[in-house]
């Protein structure tokens, strides 16, 4: 089975059920697929069967959206156990989660909600990561979020916060370049400040996606992380700079709304690959 750690220019797509027959019929020029863990925590049926078929031909990334790593109180032990079982069954290349919270008081909000970047959050996130990594028996990749508000309580930059989490827990990072761009615009700061503050060696995977543009109360651009459009040119430019800085990293195109034909997504992934190859050529020239 493909080990992506030896293939840094690997490219992948989020797996969409409507693309499964095409993917299994004539495997595209892709190295890996990513799925949301929560869509596969079911007893049986087509989802798991399709995932087994895809897994038999491609490397896999399992991406959690419900552990609520940034949330208050203890992690949902039942959910964590199910995630650990899924990871054991499918042996993905990575299991990743978000620097965010999504549950409170037993209710699940189905959104990636922001946390203040302060010492209390740092301790909570690290303790949750320790617990999850112990149970899943591997380092988790933690993803930087898209955020729409800041907090008076924050005392750390997002990049410094993530770097400290990596240092304390040994987790890896999933760098979402689209999220870095969105948060940069939404908070009037340079996204490069975030990316350059992250420990390069910890970044194991990169996400690219599209956003929608709205306006805030003052008429300033407010970018919304929809995963509903092609990757924006500004994000490609930031990705190119990121790859020049980091070297190639396995890169995934995420698309969850307005799903286009598979070939359109494959073309976006191929563009990421060619940017990575350009960087290698430049490096060795």
């Amino acid at each position: 089975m493909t080990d992506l750690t030896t293939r840094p220019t690997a490219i992948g797509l989020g797996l969409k059920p409507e693309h499964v027959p095409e993917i299994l019929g004539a495997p595209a020029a892709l190295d890996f697929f990513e799925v949301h863990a929560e869509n596969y925590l079911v007893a049986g049926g087509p989802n798991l069967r399709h995932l087994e078929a895809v897994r038999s031909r491609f490397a896999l990334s399992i991406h959690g959206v419900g552990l609520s790593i940034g949330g208050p109180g203890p992690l949902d032990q039942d959910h964590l156990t199910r995630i650990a079982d899924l990871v054991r069954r499918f042996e993905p290349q990575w299991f990743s989660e978000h620097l965010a919270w999504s549950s409170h008081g037993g209710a699940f909000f189905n959104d990636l909600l922001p946390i203040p970047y302060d010492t209390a959050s740092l301790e909570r996130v690290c303790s949750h990561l320790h617990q999850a990594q112990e149970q899943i028996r591997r380092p988790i990749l933690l993803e930087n979020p898209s955020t729409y508000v800041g907090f008076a309580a924050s005392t750390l930059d997002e990049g410094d916060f993530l770097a400290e989490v990596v240092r304390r827990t040994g987790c890896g990072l999933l760098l979402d370049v689209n999220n870095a761009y969105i948060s940069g615009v939404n908070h009037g700061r340079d996204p490069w400040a975030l990316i350059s503050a992250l420990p390069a060696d910890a970044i194991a995977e990169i996400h690219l996606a599209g956003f929608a543009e709205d306006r805030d109360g003052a008429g300033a651009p407010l970018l919304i992380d929809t995963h509903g459009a092609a990757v924006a040119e500004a994000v490609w430019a930031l990705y190119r700079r990121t790859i020049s800085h980091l070297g190639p990293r396995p890169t995934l195109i995420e698309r969850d709304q307005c799903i286009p034909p598979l070939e359109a997504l494959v073309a976006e992934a191929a563009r990421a690959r060619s940017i990575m190859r350009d960087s290698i050529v430049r490096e060795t020239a």
Partner: protein
Amino acid sequence: MSAAAAFFAPFAAGLRAPNRPAPPGLTTWNDSDPGVRFDVYRNNVVVSLVGALADGFPVTQSLVGEDFFLWMAREYILAEPPRSPVLAEYGDSFPAFIAGFEPAAGLAYLPDVARLERLRVRAYHAADAEAVSTALLTSQLQRPEQLPGTRLQLHPSLSLLSSSHAVVSIWAAHQGAAPPRALEVERQESALVLRSGDDVLILPTPPATAAFLSLLKTGATLGDATAAALESAPDFDLTQCLASLIRHGAIVAWQPPGDPAP
């Protein structure tokens, strides 16, 4: 209240209350109104969960229209939010909520249509199980004297719904591209829901057959279940019923009398 609770409780409460001001402590780089930005989160929560419900209840949505569904689903989400991040598990109580949702009271069949759609989602994700082999069935059926004491284990995806409304016809009328034609809704109908391959079948089923299968599911013997079915429908045909179950791969264990339960 701990520092963490002081942050999370107001944020979570704000997500659930559209008319409440944004929680305290939010900042924006350009001093714009943080409420406008907080509304992005409020909107994401409702839109994503309404979308999840719409995916699972497409006929219910089409019966009431998108705007009404959005209103009803939103009220449900606020009253009974998901308890787990696994959204396939969300919505078991939606049909009962619809039954108590006063503005939908004019559509008496709506809760049962929603029940049927929920059974369909549950069947899709139910555990896998191998159907018993034809060879085993053939050998068992050659000993008819054993049939009355035999118990069957049916596929985990199999479930039944009996309604005083024409739920199967209503559901079926919304499956094609053509606009649904008028139909008599005040008619009792029963449905058998069962996964077959990648598809979930919704099969119209005579009430006696539905009652027969419900009894089998609770562990009744073929003899007892058949007697009950014959009482309500003298023309109940056991052979035909078994043939249909076999054809759909719905029998996953066949336990002749004296066999230990699995």
